[in-house]
């Protein structure tokens, strides 16, 4: 997790809320060290080519030893803006794109891909589902790459591509377009 908890900072900024239509702050400009990736990133655990058309930063977002089952942690990715709110969770069961010894560690954008509702704290441990979104009740299956279970989103929840190096978990890309973005990585 980032040291100053930029997520709380973004959410607590005056006038901001991910709930308001008119004011949505672009967030903080903290620089991240980036590692540029090649155009096509082939992820062994995803079982197929993950089409990553852009250069994503490689960012350490957590440690295997710090994760407890069903206790999501938040982080910002791929940048430090409010749209970058993501969560990392150890589901306790094998998941598509999951990393770690049990292939059960996954990460997703925390913004509903229907209309951008903030899905913070809405993790259903029993069914491994994110949601229902506070805006219109969409739910997403986290064992199946964020597929819509029920609801209205026209895209699954964008899944963060993870890599494990020793105890460290790195975010290295995003599959799917994050709500609100025309491109996950600005030109």
């Amino acid at each position: 997790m980032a040291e100053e908890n930029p997520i709380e900072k973004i959410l607590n900024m005056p006038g901001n809320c991910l709930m308001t239509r008119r004011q949505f702050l672009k967030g903080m400009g903290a620089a991240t060290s980036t590692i540029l990736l090649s155009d096509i990133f082939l992820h062994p655990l995803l079982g197929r080519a993950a089409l990553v058309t852009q250069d994503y930063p490689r960012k350490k977002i957590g440690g295997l030893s710090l994760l407890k089952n069903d206790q999501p942690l938040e982080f910002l990715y791929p940048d430090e803006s409010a749209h970058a709110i993501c969560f990392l969770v150890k589901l306790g069961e094998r998941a598509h794109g999951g990393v770690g010894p049990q292939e059960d560690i996954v990460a997703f954008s925390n913004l509903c891909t229907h209309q951008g509702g903030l899905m913070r704290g809405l993790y259903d441990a029993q069914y491994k589902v994110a949601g229902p979104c506070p805006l219109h009740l969409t739910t997403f299956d986290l064992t199946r790459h964020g597929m819509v279970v029920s609801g209205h989103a026209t895209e699954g929840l964008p899944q963060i591509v993870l890599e494990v190096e020793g105890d460290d978990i790195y975010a290295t890309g995003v599959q799917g377009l994050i709500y609100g973005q025309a491109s996950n990585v600005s030109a």
Partner: protein
Amino acid sequence: MEYKRVDKIPLPPANAKVYTTACDYCVVGCGYKVYVWPDGREGGPKAHQNALNMDYPAPPLSGRWISPNQHNYCVVQGKKHHVVVIPDGDATVVNRGGNHSIRGGCLAQKVYNPEGPTADRLKYPQIRIHGKLTPVSWDTALAVMARLSKYIIGKYGEAAWGMKTYSYEFFENTYAISKLAFESIQTPAYSEHDKPGPGNDTAGLDDSGIDAFSASYHDYSLADVIFISGTDPFETKTVIFTDWILKGHPNKIIMVLPRKTAGAAYAEKTGGLFLQIIPGADTILHLALSKIILENGWQDQEFIDKYVANRFEIDSGFGRGTRNTPWQWRTTWGKLGATYQEYRDWVLSSKEAELDFASHTTGIPKDQILKAAEMIAGPVDGKRPKTSFVLEKGNYWSNNYLNTASYAALGLLCGAGNRPGQVISRLGGHQRGWYGAASYPILLSPEKFPGRRKKEIDLDRWVEAGKLRFAWCIGTTWTGAMAASQELAQSFRRLTRENPHQIQSADEDEIVKTLKNRVDSEGMVVVHQDIYLREPMGTELADLVLPASGWGEVDLTRCNGERRLRLYSKFCDAPGEAKADWWIISRFAQKMGFKGYDWKDSNQVFEEAARFGRGGVLNYHPLVVYVKKLGIRAHELLREMGTRGIQTPVRYRTHPTESQEYLEYTGYYRSSMTAGVLVGTKRLHDPTLDPGVPEGPTVHQKWLTAFNSHSGKALLHKTPWEFFSDFYERIKPKGDELWVTTGRINEVWQSAFDDMRRPYIMERWPDTFVEIHPDDASPRGIESGDVVRIENDDVLIQTGGFVGVEDDDLSFTRLNEQGLIRVGKGAVEAVAMVTEDVRPGVLFTNFLHASSPANSLVHRVPDPITNRYRFKLGKGRIRKVAESPYKKSLAKMSFAPRTVMGILKVAALEQKKEEEWW
């Protein structure tokens, strides 16, 4: 078909062309905007660089975000273009602020893209020669059809020439269809896509004086309590739920379904009720609720005294002769129509209305029935709750007449039916696109009720009886959509492919000769007109296949579930030689020698149709008169009105007395070039509306401010259980059989004709599914992800009974005694989803999956009172046959329950002011 995730989308440049349209799918009819621009260009992320005038990233609820499924490529004047279809973020009605469903949200994927999954659109007329569909010219195809039609009508009569068409694919097309069928040919052999013959869907509502779409969506925000029967609008009229109900007055929802859905789970979690009913038992529930309400004196006596018909009003207006229409007959024949006092006495003395009987028959615990009665009618702090009653197919497609009539009566007792927030209405399925050029020629129909009253045809039974020689099927799968689907398809096969006369030559004369031999040897010729080649109608049964154009390819109009009329703009080319349905009809009619079909464009059809709708609730005739004064085309005025459109009936007023708020909701049009204003109509039967005197072309029908009956009063109907119980007892599952009931789910529209071409949706639903309760699954060794087979070897099919003479001739008991019920078979396969959400003893599956039509398990014995099928009352035995790949793979299909409401934090419930939250 792999779904490829992308992490960027092209933005429309500032000069992209912008069109307005509405969703092609469910009844809600959300407003959409379409952006089209040439390939090779892109807009930028700054507001001035893109046509959405948005600085990206867009904030939540912006109505300005383009998800990857909202972008596609299309063809405009032969050249590749980008196309973006997004909900209208500026909408102030229907889908306010750009709300949408998953179906409409993926509209862009519907667009014909020669390099994408829609590349297989039908492009040329084809004739099946040597068993193979072979392209021919329009001229040849239509000449063959016309020559054959003349022959058949001449030799076998009009009733041997029939059509089965959608009822909703836009006014211009249905007007052309009905003009051909009812005015020019005058055939009684006609049926819409979702029923065996023309007529009411919810006859009990109509008989009660309630137009099935009298309400406005706003009413669902105004209600304190919403009693929802036989549907979950979250699943199928999504934005009614997620916008108008969710953001409404703090409300309570009661939902009656055999299967818990997301909306039902939400209802339970927010102080409402989920009543998990045994399929087919709704009438009993309605009677029990009515009895409890009457016993407690919770009925709205003031409303009843003012608005419900007394004996004189029931009988008045008919004279003493024959009751010529079914509803006049049903109202006055003495068995059903009742005054309040008669209805009250009947309910209070009915065994079926007693709580013990009701709880046993419906499977709903007594305390829940009592609670529901109190919630819908019991005073809260001395004040009556505003309750609205809304229903859909689970209600009227299980016991058509009795369910709808008893439901309307329950609503009327509670003071609903005509006031803001207190409405009785259908929620609807598809949109309202029927514009009739002429009435159905009922006098020519081969069917008759006992007595002298004519009845509309049951076209399926007519086909099975070998009476139809020419069948023109437009925009429906026909067999899959009707009951006992596989048996019906088999009948089609017998009459077409198994007939010895099959086309062996491309020569027009030879083709006509062969097909004449076909019909002269008790065979049938089938034409299928659609946008895709469908199973089995197109792939196997049709002799001719005609390519249609549709949404986005022609300027078209229709209304949504609150009668909102909009223009659905053309923005791209249709594939190949595909033509609008109205065009195909007109060219056929010309070959038949019929006059009045020389339309040049769809606007001309729209303007011509207007005067035939003047008496109806979809009347837009004043708009057409108004545009003539302005010297513009009617479609162009609608284009100006954008996604708001105007709610029909359209009225013309020189000085409207409607409030600005009312007009902003209904839509209106004022021009400095001419006097007066076109105004819309928010709600029907509405005594709070002051329409003034009818001005200019305006027509004031009684139902504008009163109920739609001869007296303007609402009518109560007794609903004797014995009209249904003989059939119900016969079809109840026995032994190891289970009920099979069906419905829509959010992600799939109709037969999935578009969805099966959406990799995104096919990842979620690569196959059809069946929900089964663990108590039923475990003894059969069925687990989630198993492929199961459901078989019904006891599918009842009515084979005759076109004419009733004695009172009970058409009852199930008598049909059976007369040997007019045969037993057929049906079997479907699906992927099992084991869930406690479905009632034990009940299976739930998608209603229209093309390769496994669940209607195959459904009896084809229509309601004798209304000729409507009981689609929701199938049955079958279920067994595991294999494991699907989805059981182990994590790539496709989710088995998580659709009802997860564990942690419910609903923004709308947190007492936020509306403007704050959207």
